[in-house]
C-alpha cells in the first residue's frame, strides 16, 4: 500500500521546516524505528523514525527545501 510521509511539526508555532537530510535513499527499504530523515526548524534538529517497515518509493522534496508542516515530503510502499 502506498502512503504519504508529511513534514512533522517540531513545536506548535512552527511555520516551516527544512528537510535537512535524507537518511535513506529512494528505493531503499527500512524497518520500523529506523531513522528516515532529519529536519531543522527554529534552531532545533530532530531525527524522524519510521513507524512501520516499508520502502522509500519517491522523495518529493530535496535536501535543503523548506516546507510547511503537513506537506508531503515522500511516498512510501508498506
Amino acid at each position, binding site marked *: 500500500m502506498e502512503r504519504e510521509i508529511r513534514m512533522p511539526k*517540531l513545536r506548535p508555532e512552527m511555520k516551516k521546516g*527544512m528537510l535537512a537530510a535524507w537518511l535513506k535513499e529512494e528505493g531503499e527499504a527500512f524497518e520500523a524505528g529506523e531513522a528516515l530523515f532529519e529536519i531543522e526548524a527554529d*534552531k*532545533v*534538529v530532530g*531525527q524522524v523514525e519510521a513507524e512501520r517497515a516499508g520502502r522509500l518509493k519517491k522523495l518529493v522534496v530535496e*535536501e*535543503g527545501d523548506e516546507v510547511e508542516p503537513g506537506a508531503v515530503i515522500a511516498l512510501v510502499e508498506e
Partner: protein
Amino acid sequence: MIYIETGSEDIFYNLSAEHYFAAQKKLGDTAFLIWRTTPTLVVGKYQNTLEEIRQDYADRHGIQVARRLSGGGTVYADRGGWMFTFIQPDDTAEISFRQYTQPIVDALRALGVPAGFNGRNDLMIEGRKFSGNAQYKLAGSTVHHGTLMFDVDIEQMVAATTVADEKIISKSIHSVRERVTNIADHLKTPMDAEAFKQHLIRFVMGENGARYEPDEADRAEISRFAREKLATWDWRYGKNPKFSITRANRFPGGRIEFRLEVKDGLIAGAAVSGDFFAGEKADGLAAALTGCRYDRRAVRDRLAERGFDGVVYGITIDDMAATIAD
C-alpha cells in the same frame, strides 16, 4: 539534576560529551554541564561552513572551526564565555527553550543583571543578546545548549564572522547578526569568570546537587567520538550543501575569474575566464580543479602537481589558490 564537569576546554571533547550523555550513557536524570573552549567558531549542523566564517581570519588568529549537532547559526566562543548544556533523557515533551533558558535568566537576575527575553525568546540584557541557544533530539534525548558571553572578545567575534559577499548560494541555514553584549559589563559587583560559573552551578543545582565524574571508560569513548567524527575535516567542512561560487581578482597579468560548483567540500565543476595571457595549457585549468578539495592549500598543491606554475603570465598558482578559496 546531575552536574557533569567535563574538565576540558577542547571544543570537540565537550561537544562529544554532550552526545555521549544523550545517546550512549543516559544517567536517568537531567544532566547539566558548564564548560568553555579556546577560541572557536561553531557552525550549526546544517550550515555551509564556508559561507559563515572567514577562514583566513580564523587561520591567522588561531581560531578553530567546529560543527555542532544542533541547528541554528554560527557562534563564536572563547575562554571569556561559558557554554551551558542541559541533557534531558527520554524526552517526549514538546520542545521548549524557556524550560532551559529561564534558570539562566533567573541566575543572572540574582546577581542584579537586568536579563530578560525578547519576543523571539532570545536572552537579552538592555536590548542586546548575550546567549545563543539551540537544540537537537537524538535517541530519545533532548540536548539544549547555549553560549553565555561573559567577557568574550567581541571585536574578534565580529571579524571572524563577517564574510565578504562572495556570491555563495546554497540551500542552508544562514546566520543572523545581532547586537551583542558581555555579562561582565552589567554586574553590580565585579566577579571573575570562574566565580560566575560557580554561581550558575549553585543556582541551577541548589546546594546539594548530585555530581557525576566521568570515569576512564567514559572519557575514552568521549575522546574517540571527538577524534573520529567531530574533529574531522569531513564533518566540519565536507558536510556542506551544494553551492555555486564566483570569485575573481586582478593581478599584474590581468583579471581571472573562477566559477565553481562545490559539493561536500569538493569542487564538482569549474569554469575559468578573464583577460589574462596564457598558453594553451591554461585551457586545462578548469579540468584540473574538478575533484579538488575546496581549500586554498589543496588547490595550490593540485595546480603545482599538474604543472600550472608559470602557465599564466603574471598570475602565480598562489594567486589563483588565494582567489579560489580563503
